[in-house]
């Protein structure tokens, strides 16, 4: 399987493995093609999770990960890509319906936009909130004080 993907995409796709867990590091341009292919040809029919990691010192600040599982093969694979701040990604909601809330959470927590998402808005934080808490430059005590004052009627949420 790895050879097949490597043959098709060449250097844009890097198969890797750590502690027995396999992942593909792919170029942003291959999303969502490679994900569609994984589901259609290799039966990765269950999208376990979508998440991101923030590396503020890197030029391409975000790692975005799709964590997939195949019921038929009983195998897991992660697909990983790097994007810069402000760059968006195509949605995978048409591939896995579960991506709807997972992408909304990534948007809420990191501010990464997904093009074509049916209803991209915040999910855990209130709609009017400013900032994306899981970015590394967002302090652990930081809050949107203005939102707290207007909506909760208190001076500070701390």
């Amino acid at each position: 399987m790895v050879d097949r993907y490597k043959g098709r995409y060449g250097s844009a796709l890097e198969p890797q493995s750590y502690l027995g867990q396999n992942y593909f590091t792919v170029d942003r341009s291959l999303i969502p093609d490679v994900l569609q292919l994984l589901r259609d040809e290799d039966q990765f029919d269950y999208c376990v999770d979508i998440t991101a990691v923030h590396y503020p010192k890197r030029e391409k600040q975000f790692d975005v990960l799709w964590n997939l599982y195949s019921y038929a093969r009983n195998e897991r694979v992660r697909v990983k890509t790097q994007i810069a701040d402000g760059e968006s990604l195509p949605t995978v909601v048409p591939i896995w319906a579960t991506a709807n809330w997972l992408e909304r959470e990534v948007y809420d927590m990191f501010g990464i936009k997904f093009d074509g998402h049916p209803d991209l808005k915040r999910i855990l934080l209130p709609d009017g909130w400013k900032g994306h808490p899981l970015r590394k430059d967002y302090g652990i005590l930081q809050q949107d004080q203005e939102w707290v004052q207007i909506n909760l009627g208190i001076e500070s949420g701390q």
Partner: protein
Amino acid sequence: MSAETKSDPENSLSNLDLEAPERPHLDSNELIINMGPQHPATHGVLRIILRLDGERVLGTECVIGYLHRGVEKIGENRTYAMFNHYVDRMDYVAAVSNGLGYCQAVEKLMNVEAPPRANYIRVILTELNRLASHQLWLGTHALDIGAMTPLFYTFRDREEILKIFEKYCGARLTTHAFRIGGCLYETYAGFEKEVKNYLKYLAPHIDEYEELLTGNRIWLERTKKVGVISGADCIALGVTGPVLRASGVKWDVRKAQPYANYSDFDFEIPTGENGDTFDRYLVRMAEMRQSLRIIEQAVNGIPEGPIMAKVPKVIKPPVGEIYHSIESPKGELGYFIVSDGSTQPYRVRVRPPSFVNLQALDRMVRGMMVADVVAIIGTIDIVLGEVDR
């Protein structure tokens, strides 16, 4: 429930007009109503905006996040050992499972394996916790539907499990029972006997729960053909746990990718056929019996030996990333941890089963009656502490 006008700009309802099912014969105006966030049947603070035609649900929108505490952010700012407490506060009715998943993920990242005795203790406590979680689910779910008696029965029996937890580690609910590398506490004197006695005690009581409900006509009317979801829909929506199994997909992380010595034990994966609320009830009842089987084998086969692997005082996993998942009572609970080689995780991602399963609510309630919404929220078995984290 309070009525809400349709033109309220505060609430964006763009999700609600998707593919409305064919209009039933009820001749009434469409109505948007708000259920929750303070509603006894939402099992926490969950707000559901319902679009109704008479009594029939045309669409829903869940508003969540009321209990958001930023658990993942806290994880990045605590050491590996310190964060171990916090995971118990996500799914607080199954705290032991949460702790097991986290400890094992960090162990995998450090390439450490817990000793066999620790694994057996872990399995016993985790399965007891599964029983406690299912008992709490059954009691509250039946209460939502109008059957009050099961609540008293299940809470009476759950109490005994909590007493075992309290004797073992001093806490009843947020147990913090395990440590990275194994268990901190050896079993107390009489632990095995107490667990065995409890198994003997509970087996006839599960039959008793079933006597109250399985043949009960009101229960059947309220649960059969309510909230039907197909296996294919479950897979597309990422639904796991008893909800997936009740739709006929025989999949359980404990069997598919065994962890913590689960491969040593002989047990079955109960499945349903119809994917309705009644089948989900049956699957969970059968699962409780399977848990009894697992605990019995574990108590009888518990080996002697150390309970803690060699783990340094300061936990510093090498640079890398890991995903580890376990079968919590709600479904697949996963931890994705990125280490930068320091004492604190660079990123901790929790893959919460309740959050993902709740997304299927909309699919399950369309075309149902308002009263069924309550039954369907109960049958998914969500814990809002885990949904919102």
